[in-house]
């Protein structure tokens, strides 16, 4: 069921996946059931203004009804900017941002993630930065900064530690990105 169908078609609740709510609770959305759909989070959400079909309140309702495919087919959950205003204003301490995060974890388990995310993850593994541009060193030099920022890129030991940590996460099991122990790279290959 795609987002278009949600907008136009009839949702068959009988096909809902009732295990989704529990999965979300296990993956960090512990307070899911506290949500009473008051929509205060939606009133504060930039995704609503940007016109995404699934924003915090609707994501939660879709989870209640087990609309797993509808959420996975749509890119909305990746559009959350993590501004966390929803979490701040929620009167029920639902923590809607955490629920979106948990939904992203569900999506990743099912490889339903955007290509951009894969690139970001690979860059994170290779350099310690989700975004690290190849020409960044020159630009930095021009303004009198060292070519590499004082982060993992400039610190092979720290990057090794980071990579070791990432290899211990679920990401390694999923095999979304290659995780060789190649050492520090200047930039991400992508």
């Amino acid at each position, binding site marked *: 069921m795609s987002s278009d169908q*949600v907008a136009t078609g009839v*949702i*068959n609740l*009988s096909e809902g996946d*009732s295990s989704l709510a529990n999965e979300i609770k296990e993956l960090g959305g512990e307070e899911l059931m506290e949500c*009473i759909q008051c929509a205060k989070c939606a009133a504060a959400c930039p995704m609503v203004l940007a016109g995404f079909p699934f924003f915090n309140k609707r994501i939660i309702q*879709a989870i209640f009804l087990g609309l797993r495919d509808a959420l996975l087919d749509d890119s909305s959950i990746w559009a959350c900017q993590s501004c966390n205003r929803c979490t701040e204003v929620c009167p029920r301490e639902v923590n809607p941002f955490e629920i979106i995060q948990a939904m992203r974890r569900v999506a990743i388990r099912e490889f339903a993630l955007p290509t951009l995310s894969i690139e970001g993850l690979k860059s994170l593994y290779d350099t310690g930065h989700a975004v690290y541009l190849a020409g960044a060193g020159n630009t930095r030099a021009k303004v009198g900064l060292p070519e590499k920022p004082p982060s993992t890129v400039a610190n092979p030991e720290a990057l090794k530690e980071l990579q070791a940590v990432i290899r211990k996460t679920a990401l390694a099991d999923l095999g979304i990105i290659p995780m060789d122990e190649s050492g520090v790279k200047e930039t991400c290959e992508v």
Partner: protein
Amino acid sequence: MPRIGVYICHCGENIAGAVNVEEVRKYAEKLPGVVLARNYLFMCSDPGQELIKQDIKNGLIDRVVVAACTPRTHEPIFRKAVEDGGLNKYLLEMANIRDQDSWPHWQDKERATAKAKKLVASAVAKAAFLEPLEDRFVEVTRASLVVGGGVAGMFAALDLANMGYKVYLVEKSPSVGGNMAKLDKTFPTNDCSACILTPIMVQVGTHPNIELLTYSEVESVEGSVGNFKVKVRKKQTYIDWDKCTGCGDCVNACPAKVPNEFNEGMDNRKAIYIEFPQAVPKRAVVDIEHCLNCAKRIIGTQPRTHSKTGEPILAPCEKACKTGACDRSRAYNPEGEIVELNVGTIIVAAGYKVMDKAPFKEYSPQSPNVITAMQLERILSATGPTEGQLKRPSDGEKPKTIAFISCVGSRDKRYHTYCSKVCCMYMLKEARLIKEKYPHIDIYIFFIDVRTGGKDFEEYYNYCRDLGIKMLRGRVGAVDELPGDRLRVRAYDVDLGAPVELEADLVVLATAIEPAPDLEELGRKLGITCGSEGFMKELHTKLYPVETSVKGIYIAGCTQGPKDIPESVSQARAASSAAAVPLTLGKVIVEPLISEVNQRKCTGCGTCVQLCPYSAISLVEDKGRLRSKIDEALCAGCGVCAAACPSGVITLHGFTNAQIHAQIKALAC
């Protein structure tokens, strides 16, 4: 010449917001007979009343006109002030410039002010003719009648009985218990309904001060507070209840099958039946309409004799009865028996009825798997048709998916505009009971608003949601029958902003709470009006919630409107304490605003006798001629007789011809 004082109330902004009070005061000052006119922010307050008292004490005035709000609630207050000032309290006249003027004419200040002047002028004109009157006292019969043996009626009866007063408890069913006896568990604590109710039923059945009249209905009510004369019809049971022990042998023997009201028609009872196993009193009743008259045993006839044995041929029920309670030879009167009761006060707790599913064609009421919540209640109950096993009616299978639909007939202009108040909670309760027992059953509740206002109710709602009961905002538009006894529920999920559909095995309709059948008729017998929704009206929503417009008659429970059990019990106990006041005092004040016949001039035409709605007037012989006589205890002061008397010899005190004429004349000029 009477010296009249006029007191005009601002009622805060209530009156002064629409009426130019100062203008009215100046106008009143110049009316004939008026010696002073004052205005004040709140006349009913202590300083307001003090104005009246001081003016009387200072000898300035001897008649009082108060232009303020409704006399219904405030006349007694101002009468007391007049009396405290040292005048007879009936030398007061009120002009209702709030309900009759400032409220309806809020948008037109000029005309509201003009109308206030007229109303004040007419009150002043009448005041000039006021006469002092003396209160009368009537002895109170120290007994009470409670109509309705549900949880509210039983608590009202028990409280009065425990105070030491005799109580007659009239219930139309064979047993007390009411709707609560049908419930499985009760929110918000999920007590087993039978476990908490049956001990109360037993107390009612055994209390020495309570006379239980079940299978009985109120036939007529006469009299007034302190002395009501009530006729109760004990319906014919066709069983000698003095001999019946409730053993149930006759029930087992009876071959007739009749839809069982107690199980909401989901199974059958016999034509001779005991209402339910825990009934109080536990006695059998013959449903004569459905009795098959086995062995041609028509009530009141002698049995035929067996051609060979010579033994009488009896019906199975008669044969089974060991005590002789079931004797079909007895010539029972089908009309039953009229019992006359004298009581001082009456409490009406006539309960409610749950709306049937039939009118809701869009929800496939013809499907056996579309049931009302009350029917589900019986399915869940251990004493119900499935002995508490969750089975759907069509095939006895356990449903896998259940959809609840709220507000069926409530908040619906085609049926009932009000919120039935208990449905949200009873749906949650039933869903919870099912979910706790069978966690794998999918439950959806389609609602408009979840209304769980009440002590511990919101917590209950949260708990239910945490169990995984799915809540969808959006009224269900259709329930369609699908092959294989499945039902398709179609709605629009407001929270998702999308149409949804669901295949369910069982659909439960939370149908509306309706007034009890014949409540309006009972109201007519008692002189109590029912509101537009059919529930009985209290005297005042906030201040007199258990009183009615008839003194000495009180209401409790769903007679007044939809209520849950805690509220019904609270109101019942409030009603019993209000009903005990006249019984405790032993006498009640009767206003002297009643009619009197000048017997010397009466021609004995009898017109008044026919018209009196309270049967207070009769023709008595006086010196060889019939003349009408009014029974002071029965007269309610309605004035019909005074208006109708062709000779003009009936005076309604407080509303004499001179007073009324003066009042009309002032309005007309």
